[in-house]
């Protein structure tokens, strides 16, 4: 088991190196001169050249990348062109808000998706099953930003029940979490149904029924327990995806997370912040996927025995 853990941990390194290279190159070729952004339009050519030299922008590209990587490994992601604050500090200060939103969205997704998926599987091809699968497809087709605006329209503007923006307590978390969670709920619904149907087709379920066990016991003690493994994997992976998906939701609700920081930085052409925000989100995504893989290997008795 430890060999598998070490191997998976080591795989994270080349992936993150690749991500850092992509992000560095893309930001390097972005259409903006950092020296011009910092000194303004009135700066002379000589001043711009001096600042570019000081910032190392005139060095060869590989040298710039190695310098960037070296600093990043020490936690230094540069400084924001707008605020002059360290990028790492800005991004880290926003992470808790994004994590809070992602956790709340996953909770909502599981609370909605899991029971409906189970009921669909228990009564396959019934009206309830067709209706819930249509709902799942509809949920997957909803543009997140539009759903968010419609929820704001009804619950904040028309009814005045919930706040439309900012992070002020549990009430302000509901609408953004529902907006972000609906798409994930749709996927969990379908995955749960698919996984349960596959398990309920197995011989041991047939045996359990033949033994005269009550249907409730067959479903919850036998089928669901075995169907949960792939479902838990999907839920874990969704959590990672939601970190990226939160970008749009945070913009709609002015939620002070990393996603909104990245969007604001793009608009202001503050590329060190864009770089830092994207890197941190990618790292969180990769580590979460790693955790899900390790958890799956641990709780799946077949894999646990294989890796012992």
């Amino acid at each position, binding site marked *: 088991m430890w060999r598998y853990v070490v191997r998976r941990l080591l795989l994270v390194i080349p*992936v993150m190196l*690749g*991500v850092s290279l*992509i992000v560095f190159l893309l930001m390097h070729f972005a259409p903006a001169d950092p020296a011009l952004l910092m000194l303004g339009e009135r700066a002379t050519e000589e001043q711009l050249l001096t600042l570019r030299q000081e910032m190392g922008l005139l060095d060869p590209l590989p040298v710039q990348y190695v310098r960037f990587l070296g600093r990043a490994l020490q936690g230094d992601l540069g400084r924001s062109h707008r605020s002059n604050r360290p990028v790492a500090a800005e991004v880290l200060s926003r992470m808790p808000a994004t994590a809070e939103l992602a956790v709340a969205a996953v909770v909502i997704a599981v609370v909605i998706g899991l029971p409906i998926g189970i009921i669909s599987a228990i009564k396959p091809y019934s009206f309830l099953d067709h209706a819930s699968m249509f709902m799942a497809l509809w949920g997957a087709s909803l543009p997140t930003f539009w759903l968010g605006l*419609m929820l704001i329209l009804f619950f904040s503007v028309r009814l005045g029940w919930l706040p439309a923006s900012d992070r002020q307590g549990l009430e302000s978390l509901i609408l953004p979490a529902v907006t972000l969670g609906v798409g994930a709920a749709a996927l969990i619904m379908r995955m749960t149904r698919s996984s349960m149907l596959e398990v309920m087709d197995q011989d041991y379920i047939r045996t359990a029924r033949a033994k005269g066990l009550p249907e409730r016991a067959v479903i919850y003690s036998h089928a669901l327990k075995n169907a949960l493994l792939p479902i838990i994997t999907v839920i874990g992976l969704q959590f990672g*995806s939601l970190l990226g998906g939160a970008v749009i939701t945070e913009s709609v609700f002015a939620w002070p997370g990393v996603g909104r920081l990245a969007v604001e930085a793009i608009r202001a052409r503050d590329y060190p912040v864009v770089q830092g925000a994207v890197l941190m*989100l990618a790292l969180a995504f990769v580590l979460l996927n790693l955790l899900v893989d390790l958890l799956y290997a641990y709780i799946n008795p077949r894999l646990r025995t294989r890796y012992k």
Partner: protein
Amino acid sequence: MNKNVKQASVVGKRRGRSDFWRRLRHNRLAMFGVAVIALLTMAAVFAPWLAPYSPTAQNLPQRLQPPGPTHLLGTDDFGRDILSRIIHGARASLLVGFFSVGAALVGGGFLGMLAGYYGARLDNLIMRVMDVILALPTILLAMVIVTALGPGLFNVMIAVSVSLIPNYARVVRAAVLTVREQDFIEAARASGASDLRIMYRHILPNSFDPLIVQGALGVAEAILAAASLSFIGLGAQPPTPEWGSMLSSGRAFLRDAPHVATFPGLAIMLTALALNLFGDGLRDALDPRWRRR
């Protein structure tokens, strides 16, 4: 004997194809999806003739009018007819969807084919690059690419297609791996067929089925991603009518003129739903075992 086997194989293929079409036709939701997609495509192609007004013609005295007889879906903050802008916006959305997926299918299919066919180091290299791309959530990667290239619909297409490439590369690679070691491939090699011919004539057709399904579903994903990028100002630039940017500008008028944001969003949702219904229907028709799941 050979002639009979050949005939049987042709008859078998024809029967298989007619079964596929029969199953697809009987799926009412998939047919609904097809009808909606057909209508949207017609709207996109014949937009200049179908739209009651020019999508960019401003009429400030008529700004923010609710739906009514002169403007069926109302007007926006510049007095532009929303229905006309939605019809013209279908062009942008469908173009982004089909172009992005088409480019991703070609790029991803090519890479997946190389990786699966040659295996070893090339497979490792290509799949690790795919892993790196997949390590960035789709919308983040697309955002970063558009930031580097500059805002605009064409750059959005490039960004979305790059983020979709790994999915198709994996599908094709998986299909190639199942077929690569089979006898008929060995026979083709022994008869002197080049690698390119083997890949094109024998291996690629085996990956059509999963690719078609992924492609149909991918168009929905591409349209949603492109609309998201336009919503945050990275996609189509004003005054180009595009559903995501229409929604973005409608945000400021949610309280007083909610129709400005509502109708473009409905258009996006309906399009994505139709494509997803069609994709699901394709999957069920191609592999009836999926219906059990």
